[in-house]
């Protein structure tokens, strides 16, 4: 699919749900790390208040090698003993590359996190968009209305890079509370 040795992805780490530290809900300071099999790609800031439902909504541009088949998301928290990994999920590249949707489609993806024992530990919500180089862009996004373009006008989410529009994750439960 990609003709270069590596490809650029725009990944937004949105939020986590019901993440626990030794069965108890996380108090604070959770953050997420994204890596390929070999190297770390980026990490988010710590969510100081979020507890077991951390919210980051941070957008990062990362390069992944062409042969990569997974990217890994780890949710860690800062403890007095150092950074502890609470849960991990592997995102197959095939979940956002290929298929019938246009290359530059903004994918909203969610995965089950598992701790070091393999037990379920919450959910991670991300969005991924492949950055297609200008000359290779296909005929998609030819209509006037915007597709997946983040807000430009009002600066919202002061400080944090404006990425995915408000209201994500998009689960209906989120709105009904």
């Amino acid at each position, binding site marked *: 699919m990609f003709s270069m040795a590596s490809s650029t992805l725009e990944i937004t780490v949105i939020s986590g749900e019901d993440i626990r530290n030794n069965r108890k809900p996380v108090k604070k300071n959770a953050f997420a790390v994204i890596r390929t099999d070999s190297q770390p790609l980026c990490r988010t800031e710590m969510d100081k*208040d*979020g*507890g077991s*439902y951390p*919210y980051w909504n941070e957008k990062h541009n990362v390069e992944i090698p062409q042969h990569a088949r997974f990217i890994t998301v780890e949710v860690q928290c800062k403890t007095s003993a150092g950074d502890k990994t609470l849960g991990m*999920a*592997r995102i*197959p590249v095939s*979940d956002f590359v290929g*298929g*019938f*949707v*246009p290359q530059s*489609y*903004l*994918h*909203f*993806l*969610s*995965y*089950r996190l*598992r701790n070091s024992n393999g037990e379920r530990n919450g*959910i991670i*919500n991300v969005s991924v968009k492949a950055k297609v180089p200008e000359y290779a862009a*296909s*005929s*998609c996004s030819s*209509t*006037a*209305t*915007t*597709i*997946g*373009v*983040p*807000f430009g006008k*009002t600066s*919202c*989410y*002061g*400080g944090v890079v404006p990425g*995915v*529009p*408000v*209201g*994500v*994750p*998009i*689960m*209906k*439960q*989120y*709105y*009904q*509370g």
Partner: protein
Amino acid sequence: MGNCYSDVEGGKQAVGGVQQSPTATNNNAGHNDAVEFFYRSWGLPQHFTRVELSLSAINLRDRDIISKSDPMAVVYAKNIDGKLEELGRTEVILNSLNPTWIEKVIVAFQFEIVQPLVFHVYDVDTKFHNIPVKTLKLKDQDFLGEATCVLSEVLTKQNRSLTLNLCSKIGHVGLRNLGILTIHAEETVASRRVVEMMLHCSYLDNKDIFSISDPFLRISRIVESGGSIPICKTEVVNNNLNPKWKPLCLSMQQFGSKDNPLIIECFDFNSSGKHSLIGKLQKSVADLEKLQEGRSGENLTITSHHGHKKVLKGELFVDQFCEKEQYSFLDYVSCGFELNFMVAVDFTASNGNPQNPDSLHYIDPSGQLNSYQKAIMEVGEVIQFYDSDRRFPAWGFGGKTFDGTISHCFNLNGSAGSFEVEGVEGIMSAYASALHNVTLAGPTLFGQVIKRAAQIASQSISYNNKKYFVLLIITDGVLTDLQETKDALVKASDLPLSILIVGVGGADFGQMEVLDADKGQRLESSTDRVATRDIVQFVPMRDVHGGQISVVQALLEELPGQFLTYMRCRDIKPRPLHEAQVSST
């Protein structure tokens, strides 16, 4: 309800925020709470949108000898039994064959039902000077012509205007041209601006004796009389003195202006209903925006019995603040956005031999519809108006086709290449003929149909991001491979697709309810992927006689919300209405 216990979980839910019901009146005409209350006390459903109809006509017949006709228009809703119920009438215009009436007629738009409207134009012969138009007796007036349409036909037109020929009451156009009626619809919205915020509190006081406070916020607007009216409340966060609530979305409709003072109260939830006030503060929306910019908190206060106001340690913070335009479902559909209907029918053997009157697939020669036909009609008849070309993909699954193999996704029209049929009537006739050509078999598998629908939805995105797809699956039985279906659904959850599943017959559909996230949790695939959104609605269609509201309507109610969620998340906006409409689509 039968049990003595209140639904505590229901009491803990967030209420009033704008995201809750996308077609609800509180999104639009919230300025008139009395009208809303009136509608509700008359049993009108909670979710409807106020729409104003403006009428005009050209080339009306001239009935008066000395002067021209004095026309007035009356709008009726046609009920299921065919009876006409008057919704309103315009004023009388003197001496005009090309009237543009000023008085608007208000109708309640409901997405989930077909709403036929009938328009009658009269030449008012009796004195109408200083007489309320309502009291004019129609049988004393000269009938000039009639037109009919369905409300959604008007709302889905590009400029929300529909032009109809007026005909005589009997239904056929007379020898003479009776004129043309134009109906224009507008959603009554004072403002589309909304504000979305994420709030959290820290260092709240503990009000519970044996555990920790369960805080929630209630936001009220101060009214002219000095009192306050609540406009929304957040969900309850259990056992937490530093709660962070889910994003709260308020419309300008609700708070008036950004400078209007709002009272924000933080309560500790008690299942008894008597919530303890932890503290409160008074801030306008503009103040909250400043709090977010300055990244500072504001202390809550509490007034003691003596009237002494005490400043508490607890503080409120605004983590995110975002102001934007929020478009409604009608904004999208009048801008070329479409709902594309697809249907899949169960041809498994458990339905029973179609020749047998007991079979769920029995086609009654008297014309009474079987459950499959009913479901197709009820859903198709509503959605067809939102689909510009009325070409619907239609499939069957679980049946043995002409070449003897069992297929889990075959074209209902029996054609090898084309999977589309024309109109709801096309689905009905393809279904009827398929019953002759297909042998019922099994097992019940949805996976292939869902994948096919997902493929169509994905491919359409490259050409046109204004299409949203709705797949109706009608089945009599229980899924054989639940996990494969879940996998297909999880993969499809990120696409512009909603899936409605109707269960017919008497089977136990408990397993199907798992697919509908309302009743269970988010769907998970076998590879640890979780559904991005809840795209499945399931309802069993029991044969209930005399029901006014069909269960299928309940399915359809959710669709505008699912559509809006998809569009808003991707920041896909309807083209601004004031921009010149370039011809496309």
